[in-house]
Structure formats: C-alpha cells, structure tokens
C-alpha cells in the first residue's frame, strides 16, 4: 500500500526539476521586474537580482525535493519582515511617523489592507460606501487594488492566501519556529472557533458604527505598521491593545505552541477567508486507505486546521491554509494536495504542482516587490547611512 512513488513528497530528477522550473524562471522575472528593462540604479539592480535568484532557487528546491512547506516558509517569513521594513520606510518618508492623524484619514492617505475587507462588505452593500479612510484608486495600497488582489487570491488559492500571500502571517510563522519543541501542547478545540466569533462581532460593530472596528481596536499588526496618533487617552489605550495582542498572539504564543496562534485562534479575516476554500480548485485531503492514524498531521498543523474527526472524514477543517506541513510530514503519503473533482489520492504530485505554481507565483509577485524594496532600503542604509530618501 505504501508505494513510495505515490507519496506527495516524490522528488524529481535534476532534468525534470529544471524543466518544471523554467516557467517560474520566466514568470518570476516578468513579475518582479514589472517591465522589460532591468533597473539602472545599482541599489535597485542588486536587490532585484538577489530576489530573483532567491525565489527561483526556492522553487527549484520545491520541485527537486518534492517538499513544499520549508521552501514556502523560507520566502514567507522574510516577506513579512520585508513588508514591515518597506512599509515603515515608505510611511516615514511620506508622513514622517507611524502615527495616523485625522488629517491623513480625511485626505484618504491610509493604506488599505486585506484585513479590512470583511468589515466593508455590509456597509458597501447598504450605503455604497467603503468605511475606510483610504483612497479607492490612488496612492499606496488603494482600496480597489487590494480588493482585486483578494478576489484573485480567493479564486486561485482560497485560504491558501493566509500561507502564501498574507504579509503579516510570516511574522508569527517565524516566531513559531524559534523553539524545536512546543512548551504548550494542548489547546482546547473550542478556541479555534474564536476567529469566527471575532468575525461576527467586527462585522456587526463595523456595520453599526460605520467604522472598521477591528482596525480601531483589535489589529495586532498595528504595532508594526501604523496606529492612531497618540493624542488622547483613547488612542493610547488603543495602542496598548495593539501592542498587547501583538506580543501575545504573534510572539509569545507562537513561540510556546509552535503554532500560528493569531491566524488560528483570532484572525477574523482568516475565518472569513476560510469560506473561499469552497471555491478554490485545490484542497488538502487525507487518504483513509493510507492513513495509519499516527496523528502527526493533526499535531503539526500550524493553524489548528486538522483534528482527528476531520482526518477520519478524509480532509481538513474549513480553515486549512494549504501550507503543506501535513503533506510534507506524512510518511505514508496519506495527506496530499487534491484537485477538486478528482478522486482522493489521484496523482498527488500532479495536484501539488497544480497548486504550487499559482501559489508560489502569487507569493513572488506580491512579496517579491516588498523583498526588493526592503533590500534596497538596507543597501541605502549601508551606502548613505539613511534608510529614508
């Protein structure tokens, strides 16, 4: 039964890996450059070449070894760090501070992020307005552009966005890998429903108040991006909440549990994005004929998306981010990527390829620019002593 050639982690030959990597070599160059010409500025050219080489080595390794997760994480984690560096550099260059003033908000100069999307839908449907102080089409991270990226990601990847596209997720992903073994092993399953409760709460309160309440009160990532100007007691209280949630959910708990606790136990966008797993073409399945009930996949899932019941049913829970941890870990090849409509266990490597091409391309396109920008800022610092132009 345990035929090694049928497992998802089947390595390819050097020649086959090289041929399979060719499309990514071409597409990643196109998407990272954003045009036909190489940058002339050496401080731009060097980051481009470094990122281009980096992503293609990772993708080649993904093909050559048949393993997904470690190479995904090798990009996903630096992507999150690069996002913080490039975002803050741009912010300080444009506004001089991480603090968001009433003037910035009224001028529509707040970058829009995907986390806001669930809160905007009900007010948009009923009032035809977006309850966010950004710009629809102009400036850095406009609302409509982020919506388009979210729609594309949802159709192509479903909640795979959370492991292959979210520029925040890599932070806790990184912290969750700092310890070899978890200090806290058991977290009651009921906590994994909390993101859905937070989702319902913020959708209702945002609709009632016509303000994005999660951004105003609960977003842990405000601690590393921007936050309301600290000009009042309320604003200081908000900042305290952001910082506490960041420390607790993005640093301390991931270190203690080796899980992505913000994503799995709190993030309302993640809960919302889970429903898009119903329309995306690839999911993760457990082949019951191969499964030996060893529970390795259940214990290793970073987002609490696998439990014994779901594995017994032959699949993951709705919240699966398709990160590939369980697929890589399963020695029997029971956990595998699966194309909807195909029989369970059919051509797992083909299904993996059909998922990792769009997923990695998405990651390269969305994250590659930020990685280049962050490297550019570091080179700028090294050559001029300043990260800000």
């Amino acid at each position: 039964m345990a035929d090694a050639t049928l497992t998802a982690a089947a390595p390819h030959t050097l020649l086959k890996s090289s041929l399979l990597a060719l499309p990514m070599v071409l597409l990643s160059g196109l998407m990272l450059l954003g045009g036909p010409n190489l940058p002339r500025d050496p401080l731009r050219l060097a980051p481009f070449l470094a990122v281009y080489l980096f992503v293609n080595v990772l993708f080649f390794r993904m093909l050559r070894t048949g393993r997904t997760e470690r190479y995904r994480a090798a990009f996903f984690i630096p992507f999150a760090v690069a996002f913080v560096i490039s975002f803050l550099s741009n912010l300080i260059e444009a506004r001089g501070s991480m603090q968001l003033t009433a003037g910035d908000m009224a001028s529509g100069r707040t970058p829009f992020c995907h986390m806001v999307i669930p809160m905007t839908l009900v007010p948009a449907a009923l009032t035809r307005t977006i309850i966010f102080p950004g710009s629809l089409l102009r400036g850095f991270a406009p609302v409509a552009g982020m919506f388009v990226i979210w729609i594309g990601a949802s159709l192509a990847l479903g909640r795979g966005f959370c492991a292959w596209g979210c520029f925040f997720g890599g932070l806790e992903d990184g912290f969750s890998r700092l310890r070899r073994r978890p200090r806290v092993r058991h977290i009651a399953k009921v906590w994994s429903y909390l993101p859905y409760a937070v989702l319902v709460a913020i959708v209702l309160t945002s609709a009632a108040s016509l303000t994005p309440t999660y951004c105003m009160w609960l977003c842990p990532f405000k601690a590393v991006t921007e936050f309301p100007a600290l000009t009042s007691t309320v604003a200081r209280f908000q900042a305290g909440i952001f910082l506490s949630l960041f420390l607790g959910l993005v640093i301390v708990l991931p270190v203690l549990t080796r899980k992505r606790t913000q994503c799995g136990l709190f993030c309302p966008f993640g809960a919302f994005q889970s429903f898009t797993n119903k329309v995306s073409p690839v999911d993760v399945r457990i082949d019951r004929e191969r499964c030996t009930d060893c529970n390795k996949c259940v214990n290793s899932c970073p987002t609490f998306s696998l439990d014994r019941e779901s594995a017994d049913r032959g699949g993951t829970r709705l919240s699966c981010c398709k990160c590939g941890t369980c697929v890589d870990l399963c020695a029997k090849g029971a956990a595998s990527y699966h194309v909807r409509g195909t029989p369970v266990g059919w051509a797992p490597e083909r299904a993996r390829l059909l998922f990792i091409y769009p997923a990695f391309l998405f990651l390269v396109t969305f994250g590659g620019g930020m990685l280049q920008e962050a490297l550019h800022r570091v080179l700028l610092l090294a050559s001029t002593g300043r990260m800000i132009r």
Partner: protein
Amino acid sequence: MSAPAPGGARGGRPLWTGLGLAWAAAAVPLVLATFIGLNGWARVLVQITGVAISPWYTGGKVVRVIDHGAYRTHLHEPVFTGLLGPRKTGFVQVDLLTPEPAAATAAGGARGAARAAAVPDSVHLPGHLVESVDFDGDGAADFRLDVDTRVGTARVTAFNPRVLGVHEIIRFEHGLGLRVRLRNRS
C-alpha cells in the same frame, strides 16, 4: 507520477475530474491577470459597484468654494449617512485651505478633539479667521466660525438650532478642516 488515470481505478467521475483540472490549470493565468491588469480591474470594480469612500472620512462632497484671495473656503455637504437610513446627528465640514499646498508635516488631533496642536508656520492661513456658513443653502448664515489658526482652536456661534457645536478640527497639509456637529432635520 505513476498515478491512476483520472476517473480511473479509484472511482472518479470524468466530467468533474476534467472540470477540476481545468479550474486548477486556470489558476496561474488568473494570478497573472490579477497582477498585470491590477489597475484596470480596480477601475472596473469601482465603476461596476459605484462605491465611494465613506463621507464620515472624506467629509462629503464639496458643494461650494469661496475664494478669499489669501485662502479658500470649501463647504462640504452635510453628512448624516447611516447604515439603514440617515442618522439623527451628523456634521458639516468646512475646509480653510491655502491656494498652494505648503510642505507642512501632518500631525494633528484625534477624532473628536476640539483643539488641534500648534499649526506649522508653513500653513499660510491668516492667523484669525471669521467665516459665516450657510450649509443648508437658504441664503441665511447658519453658524459663524471664529478660528485661531495659529493655535488651532475654533468657536462656533450657532444661528440655526440644528447646529450643535464643534465636532473636530483636522489639520491638512495646506490648511484646516472644521467639522461642525449638526442635528438632522427629521
């Protein structure tokens, strides 16, 4: 890749298998189209949905511009937008703007603050401004604004019972925005 054929040994349905594979294969073009056509898709999305940024943030549409030479007054339409219908209270925004954006840094009051911090010198508004505002367009002033632009304070003298007082003072790069709280007609 020694796998059984689609719809083969393990009981798949060929039509669903074909559709699933086609959908999965379309994901790469979909990702490319998403990013390459991003600006175009974004414009289409805005046109199709007809959405705008909430007036609670933008201050609403500018309905009148009065040029005073040294500065301009932009009067916005009153904002009462609510989820299921107009709210009982709202605001009207009056912007006092210099003709040329000054290279001022933006740092100002939080939502609800009735006093902004000191205005940068590069915002060349006159130090003291008095402005009568007719927000409902009936030809009679509804309130008078008395603004000290140097310290960023404003006083409202109401001539209309719907006017409730200063709601917020916003500092822009090239002037000030004053939101005056209003009671809705209904």
